[in-house]
């Protein structure tokens, strides 16, 4: 389609009203897309909102992990592990993450900090000294991904099977 050169009076201008109208339609459609994106963001589809927060519990109810389903790369991602109750062995509480999960996400910090971490073939373990009788406990891991994608892993305590965790990370 060629632009119709319209000599309106003596004005030489390359106007094309048909294309212009299509451009306006494109604009309107674009605005709707904007609105949908904003709505999705507010609701939490892009991280940090109501829809994204998830919690998974172990079968016996002793372990629960709160994690975000949707998150963004290069920005802090908080996982909260709750033990009700904690079951320390020899005065130590052990929490573990599956190896691929820990490899995929950098650990920014753990709150409270563990006294040491132990690497294994399948897991990375965080060891916290424990004082007193068994009771409820909560540990927060702040992680950061350096790339987008889907991440899965397991998080658990002691010798348990742990619970599955997954995130969809936006680049």
């Amino acid at each position: 389609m060629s632009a119709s050169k319209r000599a309106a009076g003596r004005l030489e201008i390359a106007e094309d009203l048909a294309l212009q109208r299509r451009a306006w339609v494109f604009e309107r459609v674009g605005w709707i897309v904007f609105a949908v994106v904003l709505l999705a963001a507010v609701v939490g589809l892009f991280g940090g909102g109501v829809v994204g927060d998830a919690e998974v519990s172990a079968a016996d109810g002793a372990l629960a992990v709160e994690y975000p389903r949707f998150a963004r790369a290069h920005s802090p991602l908080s996982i909260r592990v709750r033990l009700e109750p904690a079951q320390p062995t020899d005065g130590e509480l052990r929490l573990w993450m599956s190896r691929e999960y820990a490899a995929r996400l950098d650990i920014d910090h753990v709150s409270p900090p563990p006294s040491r971490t132990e690497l294994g073939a399948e897991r990375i373990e965080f060891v916290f000294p424990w004082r007193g009788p068994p009771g409820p406990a909560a540990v927060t891991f702040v992680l950061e991904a350096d790339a987008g994608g889907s991440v899965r892993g397991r998080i658990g305590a002691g010798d348990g099977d742990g619970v599955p965790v997954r995130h969809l990370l936006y680049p």
Partner: protein
Amino acid sequence: MDAVLSGLIVYAFLLIVFRISGKRSLGQVTTFDFVLLLIVAETTQQALLGDDYSITNAFLLIVTLLAIDIGLSLIKHRSPRLDRLIEGLPLVIVEGGRPLRERMVRARVDDQDVLSAARIAQGLERMEQIKYAVLERNGTISIIAQDGE
């Protein structure tokens, strides 16, 4: 590779997003336009650099963006059709002193914008003195005065 890909994606994204916003969004006519431009620039910079502050990354990004710019201008030169798609077309919004209402509404331009441009460009006083007002591709309004003004 990261830098090149980021540059490409961000450039394409901005192109599409500003096309969706219509001609006037970056006209830089009002303070708000200017503020918008500043904020977009800042946000883009953060996204492009990430946490890589090396000179190399900066140079790669600059080269990528310039290369895309050159590439696009070559393409637009070869294909007038693509040029119109990417950059848009000028639009007559006032003819013979009379505003073309439907066009102005759709282009989100009002009489005040036209009159302001007329004052700035030609020192005109009234709508009737305007022979043609054209909404140019870059969002500015150009004014042609009636013969004899």
